């Protein structure tokens, strides 16, 4: 790789992933509420947030470099845990609203506190996470235990003083954005203006201002007048990382539309339409399902975007709508198993994908706790596994291989012995360093590149 052995380029993209940490219970019996449903690093990468099906958010913070314990540098430890959403019941429609956290998105940090948006199917909440390491002592009007003093008893006044206390991290909901979505929210995305954000459900995308909770603007509406004519739904949406007027949304038909909010208030007409013509030879009953895009992510540069459908990851150049510039097969060996995967519902799994900080590599998950990384420059790809067995500190991850058919070599795993209950849907890559977080059901694995 690094072709001409480019001088200063350190190992380039030749990652050597090592196990760093694993969070979560070891118990074989996994409670549904503990299943991780979203993973997200903040802008600096110092904080890592996870949401689960039980509506809880757990935030990990990276330890600072420590001379006393040099090896603990870069370790993520629990920083804050709070219940973000509770199950609700819509009495009018006789519908239970799940508390599962669908997405978490951090806001760029503007002061000492951290802010994030978390959403379930119907409601988005803005949470403020702040530290408190001092408390005031010596109040005049109340005792140390908080009881009010009798004003007549006070004979002298004093100025309260601040005393250090054990660090306490508090999470408080600052805004609740509710009642704007009829269908299930699948995406939220903070705009580069740091003032607005979008939320997308199956048929509509709304634009919010972070300060205003009682109003949102609908900017995309693909609901047909006659629901019988419904042919596609919105599956993901994201704002451009630099151009605050540009957003993209993907559909269940495998297409992506780019909209420019400057062109009109309602962005039903797209500015760009990205679709790769279907290969007629690979048509099957399930062609439509596997072409449905489950995730769309802009590159950090804003020049490219990546889409994930059931079997592949595609990288698109925003300047070319006719076809992607790269297509990476994630688990092509599943193409012949689509019927079984349809039966056991696995074909509906929504895998996410992510870019590394320099946009030179992309990562996505698969089954059997495998996840895949594709190096865009060297065209190399690797399959790694998140498992307790290979979880010794700083142990290197061994590349895995799935044997599609024919003779199975040693160390290869045959398609039929893959565990489809162990799926990696959510992965995140540190915005700067080569640190990745991989959610495997109820466990969060953190891997670091040896060069780190």
């Amino acid at each position, binding site marked *: 790789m690094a072709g001409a052995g480019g001088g200063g380029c350190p190992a380039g993209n030749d990652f050597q992933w090592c196990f760093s940490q694993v969070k979560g219970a070891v118990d074989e019996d996994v409670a549904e509420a503990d299943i991780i449903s979203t993973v997200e690093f903040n802008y600096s990468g110092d904080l890592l947030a996870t949401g689960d099906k039980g509506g809880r958010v757990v935030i990990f913070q990276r330890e600072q470099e420590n001379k006393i314990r040099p090896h603990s540098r870069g370790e993520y430890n629990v920083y804050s845990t709070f219940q973000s959403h509770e199950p609700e019941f819509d009495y*009018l*429609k*006789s*519908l*239970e*609203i*799940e508390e*599962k956290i669908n997405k978490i998105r951090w806001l760029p940090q503007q002061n000492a506190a951290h802010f994030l948006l978390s959403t379930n*199917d119907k409601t988005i909440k803005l949470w403020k996470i702040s530290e408190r390491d001092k408390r005031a002592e010596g109040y005049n009007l109340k005792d140390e235990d908080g009881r009010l003093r009798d004003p007549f008893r006070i004979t002298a006044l004093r100025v309260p003083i601040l005393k250090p206390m054990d660090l306490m991290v508090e999470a408080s909901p600052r805004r609740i954005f509710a009642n704007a979505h*009829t*269908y*299930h929210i*699948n995406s939220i995305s903070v705009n580069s203006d740091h003032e607005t954000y979008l939320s997308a459900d*199956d*048929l509509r995308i709304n634009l919010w201002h972070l300060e205003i909770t009682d109003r949102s603007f609908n900017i995309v509406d693909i609901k*047909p007048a*006659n*629901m*019988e*004519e*419904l*042919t*596609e*739904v919105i*599956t993901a949406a994201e704002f451009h990382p630099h151009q605050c007027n540009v957003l993209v949304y993907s559909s*269940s038909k495998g297409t992506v539309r780019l909209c420019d909010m400057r062109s009109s208030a309602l962005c039903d007409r797209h500015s760009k339409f990205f679709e790769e013509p279907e290969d*007629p030879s690979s*048509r*099957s*009953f*399930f062609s*439509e*399902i596997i072409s*449905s895009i489950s995730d769309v992510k802009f590159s950090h540069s804003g020049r490219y975007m990546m889409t994930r459908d059931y079997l592949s990851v595609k990288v698109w150049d925003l300047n070319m709508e006719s076809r992607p510039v790269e297509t990476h097969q994630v688990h092509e060996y599943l193409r*012949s198993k689509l*019927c079984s995967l*349809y*039966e056991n*519902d696995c074909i*509906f799994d929504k895998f996410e994908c992510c870019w590394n900080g320099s946009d030179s590599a992309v990562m996505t998950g698969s089954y059997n706790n495998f996840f895949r990384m594709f190096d865009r420059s060297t065209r190399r790809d690797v399959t790694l596994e998140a498992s307790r067995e290979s979880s010794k500190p700083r142990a290197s991850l061994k590349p895995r291989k799935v044997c599609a058919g024919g003779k199975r070599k040693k160390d290869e795993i045959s398609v039929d012995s893959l565990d489809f209950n162990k799926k990696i849907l959510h992965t995140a890559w540190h915005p700067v360093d080569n640190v990745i977080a991989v959610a495997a059901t109820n466990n969060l694995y953190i891997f670091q590149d040896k060069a780190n």
Partner: protein
Amino acid sequence: MEFKLEAHRIVSISLGKIYNSRVQRGGIKLHKNLLVSLVLRSARQVYLSDPCPGLYLAGSAETPVPPPQQPGEPAAGPPAGWGEPPPPTVLAAWPETQPQPERPAVPDAPRAGDAEPADAVAGAGGASPGREADAAEAAWGRVAAAGGVSDLLPEGLRGARRPCGCPAGGEDRPGASPRADCCCAPRPAEDEPPAPPVVCPRKRGAAGAGGGHAGCPAPDSTPLKKPRRNLEEQPSAAEEDGEEEMETGNVANLISIFGSSFSGLLRKSPGAGREKEEAEESGAEAAEPGQICCDKPVLRDINPWSTAIVAF
């Protein structure tokens, strides 16, 4: 024929999924149901476009469904309301409920265009799963050639159905299948005479929201229109209310495909709060005490083998 069985299997799985989605936590997931309905439609097209009449015999031999109803007595036993086992007319398009004795007399005669001999069909009944994928693809190619999946009632399908003969009594795909499917368009009205007591009450129930269509669809426009009209009325009614329902219109697509047997499905969808009120006059529903979403009555309209899936 393997692909026909494969298609049938996929259809049954899809129906099960759609049914289960109604009771899962969080409400109907529009995206998943849309995808399932697309698969369902494709499989159904493959299934129906495949001209092998004798398969009904082979097919029904395969499926573990007791064929309780005879086509000669479509009106017998069928319920006046929701509470009884479905008549064969309801079991649209799923020939396994067609009684076997009926079939052997019919297979080849009406199907002039068919090349497949009955014995080959019967022999194909035991298709090995391994060939299913190939067979499915072959079928797929044929369907694609026949012209697209976009339409509910593609021409190719209609064409394929033409030689079906619609023998008297309408046991060939009567009832719930789209009437226009049958080559003899006006036939549905005539086909139905044995069935009206079956069809109408259900339709009335389905049409409850529409203010109660009296009697049978026969004298009216094709029954296919009824569910649609209901659907159209409901959204507008809902909109007037100033409140939007979470409509599962793709499920309504199924209703159009399968007619009355699924009208209950639409009405029992999560947005059914208002529909339920409107359907109050349907005595059959009121007659089911303690049912939250009247699951069971709808169930009884679905294939018996589907009933088995969801039995609890």
